[in-house]
């Protein structure tokens, strides 16, 4: 199989996973921030 063909499809998977990972990582960071905010709230609220 031509190396250019393999490289082109690797680029597709690489960029797709990079975007998915980037969204997932940002979501995780926001969830951690939310947890921190919840913990910082006084217990009677």
């Amino acid at each position, binding site marked *: *199989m*031509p190396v*250019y*063909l393999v*490289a*082109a*499809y690797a*680029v*597709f998977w690489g*960029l*797709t996973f*990079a*975007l*998915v990972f980037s*969204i997932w990582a*940002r*979501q995780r960071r*926001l*969830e951690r*921030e*939310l947890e921190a*905010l919840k913990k*910082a*709230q006084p217990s009677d609220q």
Partner: protein
Amino acid sequence: MMNRQNDLPGLILALASAVAVLTALGMVFLYAPREATMGDVQRIFYFHVSSAWVGFFAFFVTFLAGILYLVRGERRWDILALSSVEVGLTFITMAVITGSLWARPVWGTYWTWEPRLTISAVQLLIYIAYGMLRRAVEGPERQARFAAVYGIVAFVTVPLSWFAIRWWRTIHPEILSGGDMALTPRMVQTLLVSLAAFTLLYVTLLRQRIRLERFADALAALRMTQ
């Protein structure tokens, strides 16, 4: 507040996208015939065209969302525009790189400054600048208004890129006229399935990106109340 656990529609969309992309991939390698002149390297064409299509469509969504933001001033249109640029940029980058990888064995070079490729490079830089300039503007409303106008003006690169191969002398193949690359029915079917799969993937990624932005907004509002 939204989280990843309660998003059943998102999970269904993601699964449907995965199945669609794997089906398209199967058709590219097992169903579509080997092209007579270019050989197996022509199989790059299916995902190259599909990623370019999604990139153009994403920028069109940003264009429309920009108009709607300027008319209505609602944050949801700004979120849609911003999210669509990010997903569109990923696909346009994909189209540019896969195009270069196709060009190397077919044209003998990764890159040449012919009209279509030059406009694609300029388009890529313009939309990369969208995010950078957006962050440079102070105040959320000014930022959104500026981004809306920028997204509307930047969209001119899409019709320019589309018509470049018709208006100017270029070595880029013109597919839809059937002039430069005669497609067999199996090739056309594979291309159509790839286009559908990529469109579904775009919707899935866009939806997740919009959810992320809404989550960030909700969190910012919560922080303000504390």
